[in-house]
């Protein structure tokens, strides 16, 4: 365990994060959309998800490890599921809070349900959805530390090694890059936010 192993571990960590967030984003978006079409279901589904969300990631990864063993899939599925929650919640919240006047206008203009969703509702909910993606990204960077717990590498390796050998330097060697990674990925999502938020909805002063 030395600084020479850092680039590989960082890359591994980044890979865990990006793939899991990608899975979580797609899953969260689709489920969020489905839930927003049937708001009556949300009264049941959202509380269940919240309860599920409170199960510590370490417990969930541990359980999945017991069932599936030490596979890449174990980590990606576990992190992916956790990454789903913020996106799902924000997608649902964003779609539900679209001002009804726009939905009525869309229907009145002769848009089908799908056209209304893709041309009007999703663009209007986009700032909230991307907010969910940001949360999900930053969380996943920290949860990905757990991958090393089942021997799959990433920055967690340094932290666990440091903890077990009482080497603070080693802990920091894992923790600081993880924190920086969270910061950098968060900033990247912010950059994305500026591109996907419809021009007409950006605050004054942000117009190019």
């Amino acid at each position, binding site marked *: 365990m030395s600084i020479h192993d850092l680039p590989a571990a960082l890359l591994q960590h980044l890979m865990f994060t990006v793939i899991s967030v990608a899975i979580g984003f797609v899953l969260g978006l689709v489920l969020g959309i489905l839930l927003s079409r049937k708001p009556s279901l949300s009264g049941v589904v959202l509380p269940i998800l919240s309860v599920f969300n409170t199960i510590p990631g370490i417990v969930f990864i541990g359980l999945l490890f017991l069932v599936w063993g030490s596979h890449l899939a174990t980590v990606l599925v576990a992190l992916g599921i956790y990454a789903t929650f913020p996106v799902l919640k924000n997608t649902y919240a964003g779609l539900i809070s679209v*001002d009804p*006047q*726009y939905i*009525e*206008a*869309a*229907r*009145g*203009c*002769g*848009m*089908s349900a799908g*056209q209304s969703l893709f*041309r*009007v509702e999703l*663009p*209007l909910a986009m700032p909230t959805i991307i907010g969910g993606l940001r949360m999900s990204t930053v969380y996943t960077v920290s949860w990905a530390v757990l991958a090393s717990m089942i021997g799959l590498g990433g920055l967690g390796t340094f932290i666990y090694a440091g903890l077990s050998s009482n080497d603070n330097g080693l802990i920091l060697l894992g923790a600081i890059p993880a924190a920086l990674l969270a910061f950098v990925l968060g900033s990247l999502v912010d950059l994305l936010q500026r591109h996907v938020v*419809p*021009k*007409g*909805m950006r605050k004054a002063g942000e117009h190019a």
Partner: protein
Amino acid sequence: MLRFEHVSLSYGPQKILDDLSFEIQEGQMAVLIGPSGCGKTTTLKMINRLIEPSAGKIYINGENIIDKDKVDLRRHIGYVIQQIGLFPNMTVAQNICVVPTLLKYSKEECDRIVRRMLDMVNMPYEQYAHKYPSEMSGGQQQRIGILRALAASPPIVLMDEPFSALDPMTRRSLQQEVRSLQQKLNKTFVFVTHDMEEALDLADVIIFMNQGKIVQMAPPEEMLAHPATGQIQDFLGKFINDPSPKDLTAADFMRAGVYTVSASRGINECVSMMQRRNVDTLIVVDDQKKYQGTVSIADIRLTGHVVKTIEPLIRCNTPTVHAGDNAKDCFDLLISSGASYLVVLDEEERVDGIITKTSMASAMAEQLWG
């Protein structure tokens, strides 16, 4: 063009619309009006099937709209809503072309439409086409809202209280614009409002609704002249023309219910009557209640001791007018004659009332201050 046949809507036991039947002609501006909750907006939304009736049929150009695809139907009916509802994620040009885009018009065709539409409301293409709704005032936004409804040139345009959120100045100018657009394009408009002034200004025909029923359907002039119910009259309120001062008659200015005596009454009786009523003259009528003249206390004092009844003392020096006479002439007569009152007679020469300076003044005050 647009025909409702026995259309009803109920939610459970509650009747929202109750057996509506009416027809709107092509090229007409029909205005639905009534108190809130009367069903006018519901009626409007049935035309583009945002709300479906529980009974009855709606025909557009003879075709039952229930047989048409909802989405396709709406693409051929313009729709303007009160909250404007321009899509904030789209530019003015994109908003105008929402329906043409849905109908898969070419890009060039859409661009032509945007230019023509903006030109119609005198908004320069270069200045506005690429703006976002949030960069414009409410009035400009609703102008675009109207253009969006007109862009695919639908034969019918529905407007649901489109101007009620705008300030009065903007509302006036948009009303005029809608009126001129409607006449220029010769489309059928159905317009919902709660503002009678708007209805009277815009409508070819006004449909007044209350509690889910049509109370009266008539052109504005006819509704003004013959409002069907007291409620409509209340809605018309100040728009019903008060009689102009020129049309006032003596009857409007007189004090009715004046006391008269018969010519055969005795002197003493009349004197005590005058004292009791604190007047110095009495109006005398004959047996058929026809006007004979007046007797004054001065004459009675002078010659009352030589006669028994008041008949010989009757004088005809008090000016008389008829109930239908022009009020201004009565006023002139009252002032120029120097008499303290005029006697107003009906067609059979019976006494209807009198005009005094006081009754005249109070009638004028009524005119002036209501």
